[in-house]
């Protein structure tokens, strides 16, 4: 297997505010546009479940049509609210409803650069090719 030697890593941070007013198609298009340019995208927030599914659908369509694009690695890390008391959890849920889930962090990158993202509840480990 031939792989490009990585000399640097291009990370692009997207604040959630930049995605908030976009439609589901526009959000996914924006993310995949960056990933196709070999950027690792870090979104301050998380996509909704149906948006994640759409991201996977559109990724598969691109794998089918764009030569050398093998897909994405995707991971979301969120604060664990299980041990928190009910007031903290309610405050978190209220903020989530009002301004979107900006307490989470979403990492999306091209599978040709990221070998694996290991995710457990407290951390994300990014392994590069």
């Amino acid at each position, binding site marked *: 297997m031939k792989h490009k030697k990585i000399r640097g890593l291009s990370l692009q941070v997207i604040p959630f505010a930049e995605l908030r007013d976009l439609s589901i198609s526009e959000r996914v298009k924006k993310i995949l546009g960056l990933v196709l340019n070999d950027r690792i995208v870090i979104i301050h927030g998380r996509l909704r479940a149906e948006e994640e599914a759409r991201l996977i659908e559109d*990724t598969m369509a691109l794998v089918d049509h764009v030569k050398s694009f093998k897909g994405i690695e*995707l991971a979301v890390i969120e604060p664990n609210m299980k041990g928190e008391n009910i007031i903290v959890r309610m405050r978190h849920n209220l903020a989530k409803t009002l301004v979107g889930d900006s307490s989470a962090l979403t990492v999306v990158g091209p599978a040709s650069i990221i070998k694996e993202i290991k995710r457990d509840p407290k951390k994300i480990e990014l392994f590069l090719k």
Partner: protein
Amino acid sequence: MLKILKSFAKRILQRIFKKRENIKIGFYGPPNAGKTSVANRICKDWTGEELGIVSKIPHETRHVQFKEKVNIDHKGKTLTFKIVDTPGLATKIDYEDFMGYGMKKGQAKKRAKEATQGVIESIQWLEDMDAVIVVLDAAENPYSQVNITIIGNLIARKIPTLVVANKIDLKKANIKKVEAAFPDYDVAGISAKEGTGFDDFYEALFRLSKKV
């Protein structure tokens, strides 16, 4: 969002007006977790026929396949299911991975193309399911984003879900880890290969059908 609301409304109407018969149950999960092996075991047990081909090479199932009217008896009760086996969900597909299993380039490229379409097909079928069995490999890390995304979509669509930890015959299998990853769900540990754990599985399946 509109799709989800429509699906929710459909489910509510079905719950009011339709008897619980021929429950459409989907098998979802990452590639090579053993979805077809589990579906085969069930179909073989109750219809005498298997549903699909299994293989060690990922993405063997590249089209949705189903078996109508599978009557399952459990402790004197009978339910009829439509078993829907779906292609494995993945975020990346590389034809070169298939070449590692001895496939020729052309063959591997064809498989990769079909596999990408299979993933899309799986996601699109999700809307139509009455209930879903998420099949995971008990020897693999359950915290993969694909698993989280599947569960997230099932919650959003309010589809009753059962998690199956398959391959418990493997030394590395760890059901506790699967249970810890999905604490809000029934987790049934089975080995489709050896046929173990199916009593508890059918018990959980009948509990699941009550939520439809």
